[in-house]
């Protein structure tokens, strides 16, 4: 209770602030409409109207929640009849769009993680590789890699590769470098005494890797995975922008911005947030279980 109450308070404060901002930002439109109709509106009417506009500057939280409900539960996942039930611009549900983004994220994340771990193992075992690649891997963290996303999409499209793969490549690229940097740190984390012990056992480099370095690196790996999977999702969303709003959460953001559908944008944003929270939460749960099983968690 001592931990939940402060969090609930902060969340409640955010919601209250949001409602206040809704009234403040949408009131101008309401007053404008009333002035054109030659009516005068009371404050209570203004407040009521700001909560229920069709294209508000800032939709109220309950409007976003309703849109989220309509576009996930009420809408068919794959509507073949072309009947748009939820009143949004897509006849496919947000679950479908979220899955398009999520699948690219997961494929890319898997590729990036495996490649990152392999490179980290190479870096730890080869001094030349360490000295030549590692500075670049660290420097690449300071670069806005996401800027190359449109280029990857368009170039691969002109080579005839489209759909999931280009987005997955961007996701892989974004999760790759955090994993490399974290894994190198982790593989180096065993103490010299532990490495010496394995040497007295006459363990080979591969045995040292398997029995000591890899288990010791797991806490570092999970920390990087959490950063990496969040970055992967952002990569997949941004990767959906240049193709011109075909499918996915990024496409929903783009169509929403084209047609001024603010409620749809916020719903897509919340869908992205839910997916991100689920992904990071899943990695965190696996981390806790694994580390507890290994006795690394207090």
């Amino acid at each position: 209770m001592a931990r939940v109450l402060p969090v609930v308070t902060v969340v409640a404060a955010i919601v209250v602030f949001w409602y206040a901002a809704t009234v403040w930002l949408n009131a101008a439109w309401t007053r404008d409409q009333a002035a054109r109709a030659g009516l005068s509106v009371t404050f209570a009417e203004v407040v009521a109207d700001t909560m229920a506009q069709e294209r508000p500057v800032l939709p109220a939280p309950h409007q976003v929640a309703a849109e989220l409900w309509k576009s996930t539960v009420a809408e068919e996942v794959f509507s073949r009849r072309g009947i748009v039930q939820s009143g949004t611009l897509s006849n496919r549900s947000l679950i479908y769009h979220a899955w398009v983004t999520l699948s690219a994220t997961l494929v890319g994340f898997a590729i990036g993680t495996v490649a990152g771990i392999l490179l980290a193992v190479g870096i730890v075992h080869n001094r030349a590789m360490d000295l030549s690649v590692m500075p670049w891997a660290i420097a690449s963290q300071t670069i806005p890699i996401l800027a190359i996303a449109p280029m990857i999409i368009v170039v691969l499209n002109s080579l005839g590769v489209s759909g999931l793969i280009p987005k997955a490549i961007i996701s892989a690229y974004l999760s790759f470098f955090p994993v490399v940097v974290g894994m190198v740190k982790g593989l180096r984390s065993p103490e010299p005494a532990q490495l010496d012990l394995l040497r007295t056992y006459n363990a080979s480099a591969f045995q040292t890797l398997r029995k000591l370095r890899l288990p010791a690196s797991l806490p570092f790996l999970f920390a990087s995975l959490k950063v990496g999977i969040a970055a992967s999702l952002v990569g997949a969303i941004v990767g959906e922008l240049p193709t011109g709003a075909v499918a996915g959460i990024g496409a929903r953001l783009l169509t929403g911005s084209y047609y001024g559908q603010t409620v749809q944008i916020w719903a897509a944003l919340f869908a992205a947030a839910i997916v991100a929270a689920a992904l990071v939460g899943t990695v965190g749960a696996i981390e806790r279980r694994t580390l507890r099983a290994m006795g690394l968690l207090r």
Partner: protein
Amino acid sequence: MTWVAGAMAFWLAAWVLNARLAAGRLSRHPVGRLAIPALFGITLLVVWEGLVRGFSVPAAILPPPSAIAARIAVSGPVLWGDFVQTFVKGALTGYAIGCSAAILTALAVDRSPFLTRGLLPVGSFLAALPIVGIAPIMVMWFGFDWQSKAAVVVAMVFFPVLVNTVAGLQAAEPMQRDLMRTYGASYRQTLAKLRLPAAMPFIFNGLKIATTLALIGAIVAEFFGSPIRGMGFRISTEVGRLALDMVWAEIAVAALAGSAFYGAVALAERAVTFWHPSQRGR
């Protein structure tokens, strides 16, 4: 074919040289520390150039580095204009506003342990979300020019800096706080003399994370609409025209700006937190 063969020969030679350098005594010297990654980078460029020319890859798919360098050389004013629009106006303004707002919020919340306990989990949750998605909303609210980009950057950098500052303000040990209390120090004095300095490594950690986020936010926000200049605008339109040498030139500028920005913050960190173990002994 000679291009490919030449590139492969250069690669092998550089590999052997690098392996020698890494095994030798020079690798413990600062010069070697710089020379080895530099040689690796040059090798990548040479192999890239050789393969692109050798297999005559169309410039619309992958231009050779020489063409990109030539493009950078002739389009200096355009690149500079984009840099000013995106980095100086969009990213830097947003970074300054977002980071100071986050630090001030952290200081305001710091008085109440109750709020601190609530803000820390909520803030770290929000920091993990794809906040870039707020870009279309900000473009609607603040228009196409740099103000909307700065707003996206503010939203992106706010939470990482907030979480790190709040965590940092709790870093001073109870023993040290007790010492301040025995001196009869006021809240402000304790903050200025003990807790803020102790928080600096954390704050700078947040500030360094925020540098990359700021540039990403400013560039991606331009994909949702911008005036006819800016790095994100240039990238997305030149990609559409298949002028990939310009895109790569823009990416090179972004990479340079990103590392310089990070480097500047890291230098400031070294100046401010010279006493911290991670900064000593270098």
